[in-house]
């Protein structure tokens, strides 16, 4: 990845980059329109990655609209800020350099009414539930405004040619899955093109944050993506703690990491079962869902809830771990370890399963790099990217986390990464318990200065989750943006499915298992 000041160009561009409070090394750079693109170009050249793109209405402060982009670089997070003044509502698109920017720019337009100069002018989050000229993040618009639905067409890109037909799936799917729409162009059974349409679960999160106090925001953050609530709440709290210079007691950090690894484990177990099932091996689902339930019950007993929606609190964690778990949890891990090894060999040796897994939904390393793949999906395509190592925050700085990668980029690779990450997560949990510091689990959050901005970033089970948080007057939230790695990874699926057959879509889709609600916000 890119290094700050890595090239002569950089030093010029970053001359006015100042430190931004965060749980990782982070800098903020004010850019002009030209610099906005120059920074992006320099980062692209140095293999930096666009992470998030968001905006905020600062017209009342006399600044106009602010557009932000955050980048992952080898030395930390870089946030670029562009101020659109004097009624300016357009900004230079980053999509030419970073394809993942397309949908983020469309979403930004839906929310704030500032448009990039890219071609795709279709709404992303706005379907037909509110009028085109209502931009929820503008200061004059209220959260509690209700509009009657006014249907309008959404032109999918159509593929012409002999024998080509379209299959439309969703938003409601056959199983118990989140809603989204998939439009396939197929010849026979072969997929020529897939176009995703998401945004169905948009709940107005960014605007809702603005009605909450800083001390309450983590509750909403934890409820944006139920399978990643620990990662989301931690990223939020990390931003808040950076903002207010609150020092979290080490014991609380260790317990947060324990909860985060349990979350990773629970999701991987669930996915491994579902992937077996989607490939016609129902025993896999039965076995893994049983193991997952064992873990959830353990969460309930040891950490207070099956799903840890309230565990991470500003300044620490909700409840302490009883000393007896120092021996009981490791006993569970070693039991699970054995079970996983057995299931691994069953999966490996099952000809039918391997036949479905191997060569299905291949995402090449080159495509993954070009599209800016993150997290688990990137690692299964041979890209060693894991913030637990790259930006090792406490306690990960003492854990020597092993980054699990696979080369093939197919469903089988994403299955193997999950198996190995389960083992690694348990090893980490074991170490966390061995080293668990004594002391408090909570320190009182301090006051956050009004107007201050901070970021928090955590490697969730899918990949990096980022929160950008700005304090308002009297400890209110001025604005809060939450980024899910699915923004980067949904487009990968459109490539991975090409040339595969439609009946393999559920399996390939599951092998990525991306967030809908987390992304829709």
């Amino acid at each position, binding site marked *: 990845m890119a290094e700050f000041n890595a090239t002569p160009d950089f030093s010029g561009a970053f001359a006015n980059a100042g430190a931004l409070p965060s749980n990782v090394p982070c800098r903020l750079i004010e850019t002009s329109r030209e610099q906005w693109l120059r920074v992006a170009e320099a980062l692209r050249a140095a293999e930096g990655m666009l992470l998030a793109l968001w905006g905020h209405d600062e017209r009342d402060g006399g600044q106009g609209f602010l557009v932000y982009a955050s980048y992952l670089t080898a030395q930390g997070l870089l946030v670029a800020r562009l101020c659109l003044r004097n009624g300016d509502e357009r900004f230079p698109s980053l999509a030419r350099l970073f394809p993942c920017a397309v949908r983020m720019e469309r979403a930004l337009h839906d929310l704030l009414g500032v448009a990039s100069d890219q071609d795709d002018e279709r709404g992303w989050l706005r379907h037909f539930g509110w009028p085109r000229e209502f931009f929820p993040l503008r200061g004059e618009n209220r959260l509690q405004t209700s509009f009657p639905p006014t249907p309008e067409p959404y032109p999918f890109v159509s593929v012409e040619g002999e024998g080509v037909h379209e299959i439309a799936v969703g938003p409601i799917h056959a*199983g118990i899955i989140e809603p989204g729409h998939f439009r396939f162009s197929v010849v026979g059974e072969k997929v020529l093109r897939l176009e995703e349409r998401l945004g169905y679960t948009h709940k107005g999160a960014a605007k809702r944050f603005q009605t909450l106090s800083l001390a309450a925001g983590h509750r909403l953050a934890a409820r944006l993506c139920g399978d990643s609530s620990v990662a989301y709440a931690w990223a939020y709290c990390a931003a808040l703690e950076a903002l207010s210079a609150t020092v979290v007691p080490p014991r609380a950090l260790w317990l947060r990491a324990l909860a985060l690894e349990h979350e990773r484990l629970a999701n991987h177990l669930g996915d491994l079962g579902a992937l077996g099932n989607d490939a016609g091996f129902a025993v896999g689902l039965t076995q893994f869902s049983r193991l997952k339930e064992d873990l959830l019950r353990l969460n309930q007993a040891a950490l207070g809830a099956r799903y840890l929606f309230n565990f991470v609190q500003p300044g620490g964690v909700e409840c302490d771990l009883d000393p007896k778990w120092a021996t009981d949890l490791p006993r569970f891990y070693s039991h699970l370890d054995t079970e996983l090894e057995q299931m691994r060999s069953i999966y490996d040796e099952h000809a039918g399963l391997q036949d479905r897994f191997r060569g299905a939904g291949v995402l090449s390393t080159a495509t993954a790099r070009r599209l800016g793949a993150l997290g688990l999906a990137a690692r299964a395509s041979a890209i060693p990217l894991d913030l637990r190592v790259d930006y090792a925050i406490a306690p990960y700085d003492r854990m020597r986390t092993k980054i699990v990668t696979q080369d093939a980029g197919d469903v089988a690779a994403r299955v193997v990464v999950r198996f190995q990450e389960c083992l690694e997560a348990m090893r980490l949990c074991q170490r966390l318990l061995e080293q668990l510091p004594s002391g408090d689990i909570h320190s009182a959050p301090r006051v956050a200065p009004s107007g201050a901005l901070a970021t928090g970033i955590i490697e969730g089970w899918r990949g990096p989750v980022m929160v950008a948080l700005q304090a308002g007057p009297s400890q209110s939230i001025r604005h809060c943006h939450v980024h899910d790695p699915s923004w980067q990874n949904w487009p990968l699926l459109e490539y991975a499915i090409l040339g595969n057959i439609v009946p393999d879509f559920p399996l390939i889709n599951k092998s990525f298992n991306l967030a809908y609600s987390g992304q829709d916000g």
Partner: protein
Amino acid sequence: MFDVLTRILRTGICSEPLPRIETEQAANLQQRIWAVLGRALCIRQVDAGSCNGCELELHALNNPYYNLEGAGIKFVASPRHADLLLVTGPVSVNMEEALLRAYEAVPHPKLVVALGDCAACGGIFGESYATRGGVSRVLPVDRVVNGCPPAPPDILRAILEAAQGKRQALAAATAT
């Protein structure tokens, strides 16, 4: 193959008894569902803007501990095959139309259970430009399950109770 069979045998049966519901043993209710419908109670789940937390607990209901199908309940793919619509989420405006269409497709008497705090009253999202603030704002709701997310036994109990409450209606619907 041998591995798989050994594993199945070694795991054994881990299903737990059904939760008790207010007036009768759930096991009796299962017989009554059968007596009325002659088959399982079929549920179509609709995610109307959930955070996915409620869905995770619905997945859990399908694990061997809760033995959902053993209770005579199963999830189906089409609302046309469903006796009960199980809705999660605060009803995002982007999902409203799809939810209404699914409801239309469910045959009478159209049981509706609103699952989770969001579905019950909008939860932390409330009512906004993007959400309707709960399922009852859009559809008649027979039963609400609170919790964020509700635990599997609570979900199971509510489904059983909703089915019990509407037993006569179900009987009438199947008779015609």
